[in-house]
């Protein structure tokens, strides 16, 4: 398996180059301040890093807690092969958030202040605490892959013993901070367009995160099966795909009922040009995937399944950009477009995460065909039942 991969493939080289290329931006930031590398200003204090790395990063990492819940709590062992890659991606997603914050925060070395100075009223306090704790939980959830590789049986046994409490903690923490990213925007009733502003934003954030989790799992698993040659059964993928229309359906219903209840339904036609973004979100990211994932012909084709998942992801990314940037009015007289170095840092961080995924797949038992003893037992158990 390992020998089949070239020792230093071209893709990895390119990704490494991107990571190295974005390093000067870090240096400039710590010498001359945030103004020197970004187009951020007092008029637009949050930009690409918050919208992409924090808002999209956290939501796209939702595959970790949804799959962990499905496999370990709901006992669907069928999905065990994709749970570990999902947890790895989630873990890296949160690393991405934390690394981006190292650039974005004014005083990142005081980030631990969130642990000692509490403000219970602040949604960002909740996000900070949950992201810190959940990153630790994800590290523990993923740690068996490392312990298996090193044949450290004692820590492995300890982790397995606390696995269920860990997964439950992960689900609780994810529920809390996925939704409180929405609560954060509740503070801006005057600046966020009424097409998106609603007291149920936290609920909408949670629902859309739960919907994009499985889509991300389909997305990653399809790519990693191409790149690393792991086989994942079509029935596993189709099963994941089948859940998506239900979750997106709830999301759509919540959105429409909420707009109607607040008497803002008319805005989807009148609030030009922002309503175009609203429609794009709903059609690309919600309605189209509901139809596509409901079709058996789509679920049977890994290609169609992949592209349908891409739609959900695009819709979610668009939504997070809308609420945290485009539909959120800046101070008067401010126009913002991210600078080259802002893009460089965001792209560099994604490349960094890809590099770790590549290394992990090469060095650690990630996919089930490196099956651990436990995996085989489970597989047998499944056949037995």
């Amino acid at each position, binding site marked *: 398996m390992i020998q089949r991969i070239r020792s230093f493939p071209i893709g990895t080289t390119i990704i490494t180059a991107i990571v190295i290329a974005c390093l000067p931006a870090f240096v400039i930031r710590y010498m001359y*301040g945030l103004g020197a590398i970004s187009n951020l200003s007092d008029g637009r204090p949050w930009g690409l890093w918050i919208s992409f790395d924090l808002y999209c990063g956290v939501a796209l990492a939702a595959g970790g807690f949804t799959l962990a819940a499905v496999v370990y709590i709901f006992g669907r062992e069928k999905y065990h092969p994709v749970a570990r890659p999902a947890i790895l991606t989630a873990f890296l997603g949160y690393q991405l958030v934390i690394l981006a914050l190292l650039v974005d925060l*004014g005083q990142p070395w005081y980030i631990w202040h969130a642990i000692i100075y509490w*403000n219970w009223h602040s949604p960002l306090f909740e996000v900070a605490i949950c992201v810190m704790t959940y990153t630790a939980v994800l590290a523990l959830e993923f740690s068996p892959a490392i312990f298996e590789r090193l044949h450290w049986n004692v820590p492995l046994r300890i982790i397995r013993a606390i696995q269920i409490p860990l997964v439950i903690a992960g689900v609780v923490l994810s*529920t809390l901070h996925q939704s409180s990213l929405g609560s954060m925007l*509740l503070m801006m009733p005057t600046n966020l367009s009424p097409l998106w502003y609603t007291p149920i934003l936290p609920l909408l954030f949670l629902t859309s995160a739960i919907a994009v989790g499985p889509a991300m799992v389909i997305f990653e698993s399809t790519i990693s099966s191409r790149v690393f040659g792991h086989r994942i059964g079509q029935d596993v993928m189709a099963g994941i795909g089948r859940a998506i229309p239900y979750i997106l359906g709830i999301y759509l219903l919540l959105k429409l009922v909420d707009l109607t209840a607040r008497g803002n339904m008319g805005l989807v036609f009148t609030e030009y040009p922002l309503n175009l973004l609203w429609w794009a979100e709903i059609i690309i990211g919600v309605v189209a995937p509901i139809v596509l994932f409901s079709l058996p012909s789509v679920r049977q084709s890994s290609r169609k399944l992949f592209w349908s998942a891409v739609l959900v992801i695009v819709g979610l990314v668009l939504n997070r950009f809308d609420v945290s940037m485009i539909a959120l009015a800046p101070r008067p007289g401010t126009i913002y477009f991210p600078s080259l170095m802002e893009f460089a840092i965001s792209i560099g961080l994604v490349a960094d995460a890809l590099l770790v995924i590549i290394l992990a797949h090469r060095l650690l038992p990630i996919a089930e065909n490196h099956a651990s003893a436990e995996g085989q037992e489970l597989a047998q158990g499944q056949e037995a039942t």
Partner: protein
Amino acid sequence: MSKGVLYDANKCIGCRACQVACKQWNQLPAEATTNTGTLENPPKLSASTFTKIHFTEAEDNGKFQFVFTKLQCMHCEHPACATACPVAALQKTKEGPVIYDDNRCFGCRYCQVACPFGIPNFEWDKPMPWIRKCTFCADRLGGGLEPACVKTCPTGALEFGERDDLIVIAKERIAASPDKYVDHIYGEKEVGGLSWLYLSPVPFEELGFPTLGTEPVTVNAERAMGAVPPVLVAVAAIMTGVYLVIQRRQKMSQTKENDKNKVEVTK
């Protein structure tokens, strides 16, 4: 009782002594600016400019007229920045000022995004930046003094006192000369009340003041945060419950199968 300041646009002559006094007391550097075609300078508030006089060109009975307004932190009664701040670096004191503690801040800038008046500013050009904004001269208030800008104001356009008293004074002024003032004390009710109150001869929208409701902007976020503990307990309980039920069901179906197998073996 909380302190406040009443600003009367009819008394302000736009001398900007308050701007200078603020820079002096807070030891803030001057800003190099370019001519923007108005007498207003610097063009906007920043990390080194906590207050400024804003010039509005208005028409009064067919005559051109400047209307001045003083911009600085409003020191809200329910400050969005203080609710937003994850580490409670910004806090509303019972004396009135919303104060900032840079020993807590880690520079997330949520206060900047949350403030409905766009007041907190950030040191974008510093490698170790902080948030900066008007302090209401909390250090002077503690010593029984009025804020530096109020102290220096030559026309009495700025009046410092108990917020409740100032509202009474403002109402008296409007009642005494209704032709000179619009019947609106900006800050009496906006977003739950501000420590800084404004009187103006023209509607506040024309001066660039945001039109805000009387409900604090923090209400929805605080309600959502109040739901956190019950959600935490509920999700944990549901997940544990589901796990136990499914475990039990699987065990039962397994023992059933084992029983079947046993029966088959004994047969």
